[in-house]
């Protein structure tokens, strides 16, 4: 009869063909419909020579992977939140395997554990991650709250503990991790610093209630619990095979489920309990909303029936949802009863609730036919409603399609709707990727229309990362296959995939994959890691990011010896110039080596010159210049060589002058040296320098008259002017004198100025009369105008008139 829901739900009949008793194996099943790990026969056969098989099955009992167990004595198996398998050995070593029995890493629980051995262990989950707790042979507890950030903690001693406690478990509350243990008639709480007694005497089911009372977590991994009637764990009494806590979603009450022998018992806060009979030895897996019960042949789910389902499927229920379902069935049979039922609902104005109930109940159903009939009823009911928001219905249809797909025994993830919502679609996709179910994951993304970056691209990237691990295919093949599938899909980082390839030891493949990476900057870090620094340098330069180039260059500097480092730079001008810039500020000496390497004598010479200026002492400076001189000769730069030579000569001379005349001459230019000498009246010496340094005549004359004028030595100036014919003419004499406000002297030179400049000279001197005369004589209109512009109408009236006349005459011609 459709429409009957019971708390037992058969998920799968197990395909694994297990012959051994479950109690003889070490078993661990991950929550949220996770995989099952199994180590056969380990409990019975303890001979070290036996090589048991470590197997991992899907929840439907399909073998995912297996590996012969070669390591030490296994005590406990457990799953992390990320579905990695933790294998805890007797010596305290924890081996981490992935879903496919591939070894990932291992870590140790410390020396104390190593010495005293592991008696019992538990894997637990906190908000920080997955933790491991261990009871050692010395009856002490050690634990680590997060295996990804391993910090071992040894808990204080439990007073009076003589033998392993019959049951214990780890509690994680308010970021504090504690151990709860039962011993004798007492319940202890063990925290970082102390051990306190929680309950002194508890009777039959008392301890179970106590556990559920102090535990706020909805579920915890089960521990090997003693027989509840017999907390001392007396050997005569059968040990409970499994137990777990769970919250009943409807009543929000916590419950503990216990299994032993062929019995299963659900214990709540009250003293009553529910008992079931089991056909086989069973293993319990706690879930958010129920318990999975795993046995050799079947996999079942025990849960509290959700309210919506109960309302609808209760016998003779008159709930709106139940009536709607009925109405729809009648409608399909073309019976008028459909109308009656509908009316009944609508009279109570409960149609929206009815639709809602049907949609909700559909979510709790595992049987597609029941889901369909409920959804059909909902859809039917919606027809009679105005403006019923469609999102809930659509969403539920989508969710159910996803759930049905993953519940298929080939996939074997028996998630309930509640678990699915808690897990979120993103995590579900991650788990599918972890199981390498890429096509299904992509199809789900496409079906749910997830954004590419979160959905398809991400999965493709994971696929590619898996693909590069397939060692049987050639690099070329793999690279091409990946590029074909991924193309230019947005959000794909080829460099990430390449990194994975490199981690798998496939450097060539990594380089091939990097070729597809459009952003050259992204390629650089991996290339550096792969020690392909030269290639990295090229890519960094291509990216145009100088900072990246710097990174690579400085990396290269440390990696290569100096010679090949320089050689590499030679071929990369951009990098070379950057490095030069760096050296110019930081390491001048390196810069010298750099230039030495490529025989750049010109730059070497420049460096020596530059270095010379840093020298305080003149000897040092001369030495540096001497070095520079050599380099300039090598560089065949005659000009620079000569200039340097002269400078050395000048420096020596300046030092000589400085000592002799007790005046600072150092660092003056040649010009200034000579000028200073003249200013101080050392005309002979100045003359000497003029000849020694072959100072051009023009310069010397300019320099000398300026200096003499500044000194006010007009006599010497006159003498000088008559010494020989001036190479700069005599106008400068006039100008210099005027500049120093000596018109009298200036006038002396004006007549000696050649005719073409004479007018200007007279104007400068202020002798307008003469200027006018000269201008008229030269019949130059422009010059006449110049003089005219200087004439003031009051005083030079006659002159102006004369000029005007001359000009008019000139223009007439």
């Amino acid at each position, binding site marked *: 009869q459709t429409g009957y829901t019971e708390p037992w739900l058969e998920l799968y009949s197990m395909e694994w063909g297990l012959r051994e008793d479950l109690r003889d194996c070490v078993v661990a099943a991950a929550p949220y419909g996770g995989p099952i790990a199994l180590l056969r026969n380990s409990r019975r056969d303890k001979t070290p020579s036996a090589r048991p098989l470590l197997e991992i099955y899907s929840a439907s009992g399909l073998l995912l992977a297996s590996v012969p167990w070669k390591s030490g004595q296994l005590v406990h198996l457990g799953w992390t939140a990320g579905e990695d398998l933790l294998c805890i050995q007797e010596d305290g070593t924890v081996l981490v395997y992935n879903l496919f029995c591939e070894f990932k890493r291992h870590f140790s629980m410390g020396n104390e554990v190593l010495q005293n051995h592991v008696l019992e262990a538990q894997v637990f989950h906190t908000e920080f991650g997955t933790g491991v707790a261990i009871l050692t042979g010395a009856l002490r507890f050690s634990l680590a709250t997060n295996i990804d950030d391993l910090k071992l903690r040894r808990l204080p001693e439990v007073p009076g503990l003589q033998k392993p406690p019959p049951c214990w478990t780890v509690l994680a509350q308010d970021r504090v991790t504690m151990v709860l243990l039962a011993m004798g008639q007492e319940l202890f709480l063990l925290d970082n610093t102390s051990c306190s007694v929680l309950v002194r005497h508890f009777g039959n089911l008392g301890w179970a209630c106590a556990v559920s009372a102090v535990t706020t977590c909805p579920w915890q991994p089960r521990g090997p619990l003693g027989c509840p009637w017999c907390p001392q764990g007396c050997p005569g009494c059968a040990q409970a095979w499994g137990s777990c806590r769970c919250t009943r979603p409807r009543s929000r009450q916590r419950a503990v489920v216990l299994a032993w022998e062929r019995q299963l018992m659900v214990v709540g806060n009250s003293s009553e309990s529910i008992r079931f009979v089991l056909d086989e030895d069973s293993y319990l897996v706690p879930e958010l909303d129920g318990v999975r019960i795993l046995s050799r042949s079947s996999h079942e789910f025990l849960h509290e029936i959700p309210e919506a389902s109960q309302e609808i499927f209760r016998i003779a229920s008159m709930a709106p949802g139940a009536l709607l379902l009925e109405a729809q069935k009648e409608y399909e049979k073309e019976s008028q009863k459909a109308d009656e039922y509908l009316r009944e609902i609508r009279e109570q104005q409960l149609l929206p609730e009815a639709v809602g109930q049907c949609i909700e109940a559909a979510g709790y159903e595992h049987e597609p036919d029941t889901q369909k009939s409920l959804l059909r009823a909902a859809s039917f009911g919606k027809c009679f409603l105005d403006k019923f928001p469609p999102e809930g219905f659509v969403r539920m249809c989508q969710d159910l399609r996803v759930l049905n797909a993953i519940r298929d025994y080939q996939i074997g993830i028996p998630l309930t709707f509640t678990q699915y919502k808690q897990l979120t679609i993103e995590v579900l996709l991650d788990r599918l990727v972890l199981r390498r179910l890429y096509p299904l994951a992509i199809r789900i993304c496409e079906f749910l229309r997830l954004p590419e970056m979160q959905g398809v691209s991400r999965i493709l990237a994971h696929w590619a990362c898996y693909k590069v691990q397939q060692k049987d295919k050639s690099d070329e093949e793999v690279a091409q296959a990946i590029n074909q599938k991924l193309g230019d899909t947005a959000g794909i980082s080829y460099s990430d995939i390449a990194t994975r390839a490199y981690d798998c030891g496939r450097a060539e493949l990594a380089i091939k994959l990097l070729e597809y990476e459009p*952003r050259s900057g992204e390629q650089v870090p991996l290339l550096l890691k792969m020690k392909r620094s030269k290639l990295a340098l090229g890519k960094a*330069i291509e990216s*145009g*990011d*100088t*900072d*990246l*180039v*710097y*990174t690579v260059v*400085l990396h290269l500097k440390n990696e290569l010896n100096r010679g090949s480092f320089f050689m590499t730079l030679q071929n990369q*001008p*951009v990098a070379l*110039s*950057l490095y*030069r*810039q*760096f050296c110019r*500020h*930081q390491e001048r000496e390196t810069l010298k080596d750099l230039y030495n390497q490529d025989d750049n004598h*010109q730059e070497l010479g*420049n460096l020596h*010159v*530059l270095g010379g*200026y*840093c020298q305080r002492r003149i000897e040092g400076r001369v030495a540096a210049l001497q070095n520079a001189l050599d380099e300039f000769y090598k560089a065949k730069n005659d*000009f*620079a060589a000569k*200039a*340097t030579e*002269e*400078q050395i000569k*000048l420096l020596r001379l300046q030092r000589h002058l400085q000592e002799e005349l007790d005046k600072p001459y150092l*660092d*003056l*230019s*040649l*010009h200034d040296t000579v000028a200073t000498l003249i200013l101080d009246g050392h005309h002979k010496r100045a003359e000497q320098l003029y000849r020694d*340094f072959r*100072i*051009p005549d*023009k*310069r010397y004359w*300019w*320099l000398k008259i*300026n200096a003499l004028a500044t000194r006010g030595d007009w006599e010497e100036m006159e003498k000088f002017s008559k010494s020989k014919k001036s190479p*700069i003419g005599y106008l400068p004499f006039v100008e210099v004198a005027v500049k120093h406000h000596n018109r009298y002297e200036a006038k002396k030179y004006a007549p000696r100025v050649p005719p073409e400049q004479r007018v200007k000279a007279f104007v400068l001197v202020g002798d307008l009369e003469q200027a006018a005369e000269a201008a008229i004589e030269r019949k130059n209109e422009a010059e006449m105008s110049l003089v005219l512009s200087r004439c003031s109408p009051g005083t030079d009236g006659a002159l102006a008139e004369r000029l005007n006349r001359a000009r008019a005459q000139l223009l007439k011609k």
Partner: protein
Amino acid sequence: MRFIAGECGWPPAGAGAPLEGRGASAAPGITPVPGVSGPGGAVAGAGAAVQGLCGVSADIVNADKMSGRSRKYKIIFSPQKFYACEMVLEEEGVFGDVTCDEWSFYLLPLDEDIISMELPEFFRDYFLEGDHRWINPVARALQLLNSLYGPFGKSYGIGRCAKMSYELWRDLEEESDTEGQGRKPEIGHVFLMDRDTDYVTALCSQVVYEGLVDDTFRIKCGSVDFGPDVTSSDKSIKVLLNSQDKVFSQIRNEHFSSVFGFLSQKSRNLQAQYDRRRGMDIKQMKDFVSQELKGLKQEHRLLSLHIGACESIMKKKTKQDFQETIKAEHSLLEGFDIRESTSFIEEHIDRQVSPVESLRLMCLLSITENGLVPKDYRSLKTQYLQSYGPEHLLTFHNLKRIGLLTEQAAGETLTAVESKVSKLVTDRAAGKITDAFNSLARKSNFRAISKKLGLIPRLDGEYDLKMPRDMAYVFGGAYVPLSCKIIEQVLERRGWQGLEEVVRLLNGNEFCVSDSAVEDNPAWECQRVILAVFLGGCTFSEIAALRFLGKERGCKFIFLTTAITNSARMMEAMIEAKA
């Protein structure tokens, strides 16, 4: 907390506070403020002579450590932090003592139409040292503008750096989210140009008012310090020069010869407005005082400042034979009387007029003549060393490397040079663009380009500087700035067609790309807005010329430059100072 930072502090832009250039020159100026302890502290900015700077910071920290002081240090890098800086800090052993921050500061609006990146070191770092580090900030600045003003319709450019910046910007654009796409474009065209495309214009003496003020007083981040000789008082005044200044905005683009006339006219008008007070009744007087007087006073103050500035400029320029210099410059540009100009330069050097000026004239001679004749090359350099000191040997080396002061290869005629250049161009086209070196001192081919583009206007009669007919007015009608002419021609032709010969002479690397996403709708307002990007700096003369062009053609130019430059700044960037 104590801050040490890059090269200068940045108060909020536009606050009128002193914004010093982030120039490398500022680096040695960073000094610890020993008095500061407790909260607050010394703040500087960051950027350029990067490693040196970090060294300085490290020294400060180490000095404090030695003296047993314990402080918190923070370094703020702007516009970006370099890996090398961290390296230096690590080597100096202070990496753990400082915290670093990055301030992605790219654009400083100096005026309505001028955006500066304030990276004066760009010029030397890129063109001389071949250092590509500033290309990234340029690309990011373009990206920023792009995201603010929508996609640019058409991009043109010339020069290797322009090309690299453009390509990097496109890459960044592709990598980032496609935000800003689909925005209505506000800037229709963008034109990128390397400074080395046109050194001539930057080397000329500026004669438009704003350029002259920059040449004479140095405008720093849009403000200028007028000294006592301008203010005719005993203190200097900092003045913000931009379009908000009503007097300045009217004369900034004018040729200097018309500025005096304008200012005296203006002062007469102002007087007339003041004079209206006479004959006012009480009410009118009240209105006058409350509404107009403040504006008039402000204007009056500005007017007297600018008149003072003009006088000061005149005084300085007469002292340096400005007319003579301009005359020599013009004959260099026209290619007349080279001998005479050479002796003028020689005399200039002999008389020790000014090291920077002499160097500028030498460079101008070299670049217009495609290098100096070997004899002149040697003698001018010798003269220069004798006048201004032997350390300039290194300066000459720099100038040769960058191609500003070169020697004509013996026996090479112009045509031979040209054929060599064209061969070079094809070699480059083969894909060897990554070569960063400019050491192959490129020929400027100025004379040939000038002829092709008609940069020297034929003079029939006097050039009316008050009513200019072309962009040549910014150089007294003697020369149309090459950079601006290229922009004009390319915009007119909507591409490089017909300019092949010029491009070849400019050593290629031109590009022209239309953004297919932006419809080419000539009716759109954005088509009238052009972003002119100058890599390596632009001068106020160029800005004035393009403003003039914009007015003529009914469009608007917006300038993005790595820094405002002028001939002196360019020369100083090349001068190797005594260490």
